[in-house]
């Protein structure tokens, strides 16, 4: 993981805490370290403290405790306008009384850059977001997507090394969001800037980022690359939050190296990878991705544990079939099968056996009651 060495860390949070009211910690013990050029996304439900972290980094909120370092230098006492951090907001925050070009030259003017230089940079920035012809317009004369492009250009025009984006695409429709997601990542990589991106949309997080920090309740629940996050969630919150997920609850019966046996509440036994269970007898929640559930016994290992299931519902979704089952008392258990020529279509009411590779089933923390 790249946060191990202090020397190449560009952005660093160390033991940062934040409380607004002196009663509740909104950010609890945040540790994070980013190398230069990384695209990191903070993902989490609303109210989990993402914006607060971003604002502390930008300087609009002060950390109650801990250090924030930028390029190795603590920035706790540097005012926001001297931090040189570009920002993009969800509501675009384009100054309505200035034209697009004036908006873009604003950061250059306050940096006392000469007129001709300014114009050249503004033009380049506008071209960069394909808005070259819109310099003379007012923000109100642009569509949402166009405004966000301008906001992006404005955050980049003074060539900051770090850009923060707080749900920049939250107000746009799906198609436009996907287009812009692609453009933002491409631009970020081309310019080599470091980006901290905040979203509550997991697809956005997974498709755009080098790494994703999943936030809940003021804490980073997991910080990992997108594939790792999806396939190897560290706890039941992450497993639940990212992608679709089936859970079954039970008790650990046996731990053998990197596998364990879990006895479900209705008595059935399954194999799982012990992720954060440590001793026999502990309560656990196992999680299995719907597409990793196997209904064909032949594909499983010899002696693998199987569970009885009853088909409740079959939904044809084009590329996949989505089948809802009742397994071990849980009637929200979903499996997804690929729409291949030889794929069976399960009729509601039939009884089947299901199983999975032990690696795909992760024994996580039991929910606290």
């Amino acid at each position, binding site marked *: 993981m790249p946060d191990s060495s202090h020397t190449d860390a560009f952005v660093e949070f160390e033991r940062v805490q934040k409380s607004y009211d002196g009663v509740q910690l909104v950010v609890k013990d945040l540790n994070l370290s980013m190398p230069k050029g990384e695209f990191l996304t903070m993902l989490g439900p609303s109210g989990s403290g993402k914006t607060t972290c971003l604002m502390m980094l*930008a*300087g*609009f909120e002060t950390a109650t405790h801990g250090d924030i370092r930028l390029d190795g230098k603590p920035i706790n006492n540097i*005012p*926001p*306008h*001297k*931090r*040189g*951090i*570009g*920002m993009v*907001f969800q*509501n675009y*925050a384009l*100054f*309505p*009384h200035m034209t697009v070009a004036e908006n873009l030259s*604003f*950061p250059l003017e*306050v*940096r006392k850059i000469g007129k001709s230089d300014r114009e050249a940079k503004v033009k380049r920035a506008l071209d960069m977001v*394909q*808005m070259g*012809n*819109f310099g003379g317009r007012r923000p109100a*004369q*642009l*569509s*949402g*997507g*166009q405004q966000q*492009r301008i906001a992006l250009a*404005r*955050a980049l025009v*003074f060539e900051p090394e770090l850009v*923060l984006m707080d749900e920049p695409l939250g107000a746009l*429709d799906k*198609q*436009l969001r996907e*287009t812009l997601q*692609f*453009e933002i990542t*491409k631009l970020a990589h081309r310019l080599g800037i470091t980006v901290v991106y905040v979203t509550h949309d997991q697809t956005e997080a997974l498709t755009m980022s080098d790494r994703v920090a999943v936030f809940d309740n003021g804490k980073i629940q997991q910080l990992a690359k997108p594939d790792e996050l999806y396939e190897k969630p560290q706890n039941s919150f992450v497993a639940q939050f990212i992608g679709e997920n089936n859970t079954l609850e039970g008790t650990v019966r046996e731990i053998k190296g990197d596998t364990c046996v879990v006895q479900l509440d209705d008595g059935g036994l399954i194999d799982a990878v012990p992720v954060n269970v440590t001793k026999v007898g502990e309560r656990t929640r196992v999680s299995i991705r719907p597409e990793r559930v196997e209904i064909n016994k032949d594909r499983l290992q010899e002696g693998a544990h199987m569970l009885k299931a009853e088909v409740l519902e079959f939904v044809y979704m084009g590329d996949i079939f989505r089948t809802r089952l009742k397994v071990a008392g849980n009637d929200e258990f979903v499996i997804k099968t690929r729409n291949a020529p030889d794929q069976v279509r399960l009729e509601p009411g039939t009884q089947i056996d299901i199983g999975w590779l032990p690696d795909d089933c992760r024994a996580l923390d039991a929910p606290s009651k």
Partner: protein
Amino acid sequence: MTDAATEPDKITGPTPDNALRAADKADSGPVLAADGRPLKQSLNRALRAQKIRALALIAPLLLFVLVSFIAPIGDMLFRSVENQIVEDTMPRTVQVISRWDPATDETPDEMVYQAAYFDLFFSAEARRHTRLGQRLNYESTGMSSMFRSIGRDLDEFGEPYQDAIEASDPRWEEAGFWYDLMSGEGANDLLESRRDSYMRLMGQSQRTVFGDVTCGIGSVFGNPCDIALEDVPLEFSLSNDITEFLPLTAEAYSDFTVFTVLDEGDVVAEEEPWEAVYTALGIDLKAKSQAEIQAYNGTGADALQAAYTALAEVEDISFRDQFIDADPDWGIQQPWQVLQTYSAAYTPGYFLNAVDMQKSPQGWELRPENQRIYGLLFQRTLFMSLVITFSCILLGYPIAYLLSNLPARKANLLMILVLLPFWTSLLVRTSAWKVMLQQQGVINDVLVWLGLVVDDGRLVMINNQFGTIVAMTHILLPFMILPMYSVMSTIPQSYVRAAKSLGATNWTTFWRVYFPQSVPGIGAGSILVFILSIGYYITPEIVGGTSGIFISNRIAYHISSSLNWGLAAALGTILLIVVLALYWAYDRIVGIDNVKLGG
């Protein structure tokens, strides 16, 4: 980049370009609804019920505004130029005086004095001549007393004629004889024109639809209206022969008839005529030759013959001398000039007065230096309103800023403090300032106690402009803060944050990003405060003394004390015009779209 991205217009959603393109694509020619009617027509039909409902909802307010706002303003505009009183009270004089040329350095000729005699006699009987005196007094002081004294003496002017006529034949003292003499056919036009004249004098113009409606409404509420004056039968018909033979007498007798029937409710045939009728008869007869008298053979020919003979002994009455006897001022040009100048039914006189000018034979000119007050008052009102507006901006802006950036609970508390003045009586607040500012008041006491001011050098802070400015700034401050606050609270915090993240210092952020967006609030507040203060009355009245009063105090004075409503209306109209002009200028410079009361 993707294709979609290389062409910004491909972005879906309502961009101006997309809208244009969509409009182009739409087929030209009327679109038809399902039932074959043009779509537009169907839409109108569907919306009509909605429109009617909307109209019904605003109707009460519309009516209220019409009655309580538009109508008074219309009335004010009308009053500021209306001047019918001169023509209504002295119609004959107005007619003959127009021929008089004041440039000749002479007073008007005897004809004018004679016309004035008959006009004033009639209006004095109706007790209306003093009103005209008051009206003309606004234009030239002293006129009021001239009219009063002439009204007292008028009765004796015609005495020599009356005595002679009555002595010539006892029938001249009989009401019935007079009635018979004047009765006949064919001259009722004159009679009716005198009735009109009377009605105008009494301020009751011809019957209008409006009058009928109010009368109808009145009778619904058990308040039946009187028969309109024009419908009251006079029980008299004027003879055309006698009118041609004795024109002045016929006119005077008609006046007498109208007055007797309409004003006193008596029967003409039973009343002995006024002295003015005898005077008129005297003038008429004296103008005749012996032959003309003998040629007349109608009713009372012998009595007329006798009167003619008797009158020959009597010297001609000079009305001019009589007027001068009553008041020597009638013998100079001044009052006649005023009468002539203000004889038109509509006059710019009130407006001229309101801008310190006057009408003179040479045209319009500025009044003498010591009579100019309104120009100064207007200037002062505008200047002080500006100062008040600026002090309100200076004091209100930080508060509004704080209000909109404080957490909700603290903001609410502060808001209550801001609104507190609204919940206290205006009079109480103004009086409180009196207590604070006067020479033995709280502030002076404190200053003296601190030793900053010596006891006999206490500051004069009240009954002058300073007092007015301080008190009015305080009173109008909420009107500045509220619109500012509601605009500022709609400025998203992210603008400020964006500016700072782009490298702007606190000051640059404020000046280049926050302030421009709060300007609409300043504009709204300023218009509100300025317009309110320009017409403010109570506070300047109480704390303004003489140097701190506003034009509105003068208007109030003319409405309630001097009763010069025309001038008050002219001043009010000018004030209205000034406000509208400022509003227009503001719109041109700042743009009225930039005025926001929030949202």
